[in-house]
């Protein structure tokens, strides 16, 4: 049976290639039909803010690629409640359908995956 992998993305969207390179791990795994989950934590939740204009800083549309995750079979998408709250982001204003988890639920989430990568 395939090992499940949780990818925790902690970087803001335009802070260099980290957000995209975390997403690429998820998309590659999805292409191989691996059981994956993706958690947006700390500044990673800024990737989910609506109405961003990446073209202004000559960046590609990360939100569009994030929205492709379910098409690649990655449907388990999560965001940390505390990270959203600290940053003034409302759960119902996000650009991606994610499950919002409190700290205890985050611990339980990490627990149920076989492997974790946090970038």
């Amino acid at each position, binding site marked *: 049976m*395939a*090992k499940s992998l949780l990818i925790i993305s902690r970087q803001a969207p335009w802070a260099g290639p*980290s957000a995209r390179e975390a997403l*690429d791990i998820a998309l590659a795994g999805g292409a191989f039909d691996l059981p994956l989950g993706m958690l947006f934590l700390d500044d990673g939740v800024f990737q989910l803010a609506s109405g961003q204009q990446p073209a202004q800083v000559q960046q590609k549309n990360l939100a569009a690629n994030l929205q492709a995750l379910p098409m690649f079979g990655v449907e388990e998408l999560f965001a940390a409640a505390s990270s959203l709250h600290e940053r003034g982001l409302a759960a119902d204003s996000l650009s991606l359908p994610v499950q919002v988890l409190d700290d205890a639920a985050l611990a339980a989430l990490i627990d149920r995956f076989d492997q974790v990568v946090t970038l």
Partner: protein
Amino acid sequence: MKFAIAVFSPAHAPSSRRALRFAQAALAGGHEIVRLFFYQDGVHSASANVVAPQDEVDVAAQWRAFISEQQLDAVVCIAAALRRGVLNAEEAQRYQRPAVNLPAPWELSGLGQLHEGAQSADRLICFGGD
């Protein structure tokens, strides 16, 4: 036990050296390393062009020697490498770039190799960030 070790930082970062020490200890402990995967700035740990000051530890050279001596499967992520200017002969030719800085024993491949290594290992351990 089987380890897949992923390195996310360049040769001059403490975490690259730490990854190497961990890998050495894993083999010394009788374990197997099924894959080494170099991603993000970890591609620079594979650069043949790193010139460490004479009185400093040459982590890039130590990685090369370790991988060759132990005949380990060492993969550098091609997308991450291209973006950062780490090219083997084939890619330098393809993109008409003036320099080749990724020789053997390194192989350029995709993220599928990270997943394959993780799937076949008992533990996936990542090093990077600092």
